[in-house]
């Protein structure tokens, strides 16, 4: 009874539990299901495929009807031009400068806090965890403006600090919840062994828990990366100089400059999404396990 049962193990086609009952798993109904699923998958892919297709067309052909999926003229210069029409790499670097500390901070703090909730005993811990749950349900709007005022008082408006420091102060309520649930499923024998050997709590955390939690940690890190990379409202409020914009801010204003050249815009957007897609594929196995495990949105 080590890790919780995860769909990944079962889904490889071996067991067929048809919610509609075994009677309906005839070849034809299965075929229909397969067709519908594949059609659905095509529908899901269509927007991305369209994005790629548009990004490779010359601007004059972008509006052609009926639509062409495969561009008749492929124009890879769009990419080169897209990244020079706005300071694309500058913005990407800014996004990275924010993303790295946030991901590391989130992982570090949420792991530590979740560990305390999962493995340690102290008076009031239950209540505090209840607060964590409550915080998950708090709408962001309530803290939006006063946070701004607070950061204003501190003189942090116009810097990246309001965007990076909070990640180190609690790592996100949902991440804490997720990690705690995961930690609870790790058997305690190794903990106890280490404790008997005299290791400190921190040491147990780092040597025993974390190494066994890579799926959950990877999920937290990957989700946090995607979230902070694509964050819009935060940078919108706190970044005031155009050359300090993050990629989402830059893209938003790009859509107005020079009369929306859609092919270039799609090229730039695709490039902006690439890191997320890469992170997604890297963490994919852990991703879906993690989602299945906890329903992370």
């Amino acid at each position, binding site marked *: 009874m080590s890790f*919780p049962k995860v769909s990944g193990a079962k889904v490889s086609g071996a067991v067929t*539990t048809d919610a509609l009952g075994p009677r309906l798993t005839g070849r034809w109904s299965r075929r229909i*299901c397969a067709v519908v699923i594949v059609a659905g998958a095509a529908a899901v892919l269509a927007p991305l495929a369209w994005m790629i297709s548009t990004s490779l067309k010359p601007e004059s052909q972008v509006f052609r009807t009926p639509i062409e999926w495969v561009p008749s003229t492929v124009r890879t210069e769009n990419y080169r031009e897209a990244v020079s029409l706005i300071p694309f790499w500058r913005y990407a670097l800014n996004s990275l400068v924010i993303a790295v500390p946030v991901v590391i901070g989130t992982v570090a703090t949420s792991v530590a806090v979740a560990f305390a909730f999962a493995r340690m005993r102290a008076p009031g811990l*239950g209540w505090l965890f209840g607060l964590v749950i409550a915080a998950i349900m*708090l709408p962001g*709007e309530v803290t939006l403006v006063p946070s701004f005022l607070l950061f204003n008082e501190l003189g942090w408006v116009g810097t990246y600090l309001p965007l990076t420091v909070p990640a180190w102060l*609690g790592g996100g309520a949902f991440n804490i919840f997720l990690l705690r649930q995961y930690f609870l499923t790790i058997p305690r024998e190794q903990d106890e062994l280490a404790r008997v050997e005299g290791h*400190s709590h921190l040491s147990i955390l780092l040597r025993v828990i974390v190494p066994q939690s890579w799926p959950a940690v990877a999920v937290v890190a990957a989700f946090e990366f995607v979230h902070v990379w694509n964050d819009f409202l935060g940078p919108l409020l706190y970044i005031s100089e155009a050359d300090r914009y993050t990629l989402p801010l830059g893209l938003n204003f790009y859509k107005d400059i020079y009369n929306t050249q859609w092919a270039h815009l799609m090229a730039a957007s695709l490039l902006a999404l690439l890191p997320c897609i890469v992170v997604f594929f890297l963490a994919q196995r852990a991703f879906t396990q993690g989602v299945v495990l906890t*329903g992370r949105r």
Partner: protein
Amino acid sequence: MSTAAAPAGTSAGTAADDAPPRRRRRSRASRREAWAAYGFLSPWAIGFVGLTVGPIVASLVLSFTDYNLLDAGDTSWVGTDNYREALTEDRLVLHSLKVTAYYATLAVALDLVVGLAVALLLNTGLRAIGAIRTIYYLPAAVSGVAVSLLWLWIFQPSSGLANAMLDLVGLPRIDWVYSTTWVIPAFVLMSLWGVGRSAFIYLAILQRIPTNLYEAAAVDGAGPFTRFRRITLPLVTPAIFLNLVLGIISNFQTFTQAFVISEGGPANASLFYTLYLYRNAFRYFRVGYASALAWILFALLLALTLVAFRSSRRWVYYEAGGAR
């Protein structure tokens, strides 16, 4: 095993921690442990007090003033004026609540139905399930401005993918985000693109339903729909509940898409609540008023969540034995 099935409200895990203490007075070891625990919790505690509790209290206080961002020195107490204005005089408050509620309801309902449907279909056992799963899950990896721009492009009336698809099946073209009727459905469609997230949660649960349940039911003469209604659905209800609550909360906070794609238009048809709040705080600089708006939303969501929890007793089925 704790999975998504447990609704957010139960602290199923903490129960395990509270083993009865062996001695009545706390040992030094357990005191040390307590301090260590607080130590581990300290960053979160600082964050919680400074960035959550502090701002919450501040925003409550501000909501009773006429604080203006550019004129802070001139602030005065106005009591419940902001709330009165918001609920009785400012038509855009109710309007944006309606817009947001319309969106959230549609998005959550469709996400549920489509997500469950996809999960059911996937549950029939397919080859290449890994690849399919990757594809359905891909939209979850991308979000934000870039995605909004992509959909803005897709929804272009004259040359976008959406209308091209309509043309393909012979349906009339729609103005999508440029039409007051279709702008919210367009946003819902956009959010439906990410249905893979919920689908896989449901799938995980579906796969853990033992086949012998179905076999037994089939032997008893239950048809496929009865099996679905009596076996599948009840067992999925915890996940449905979780998605419902979290879905409502997060959909009520929609901001980026509205800001990037439609800026609340056309004619305020897509004026989401958060967008209107943002406008009041950062365009009209009426911070006091915006704080009141935030609290109105908070109260509303709290009420909805309580209603959801209350009603859950009747329809959410926990494996631990009957409805709670």
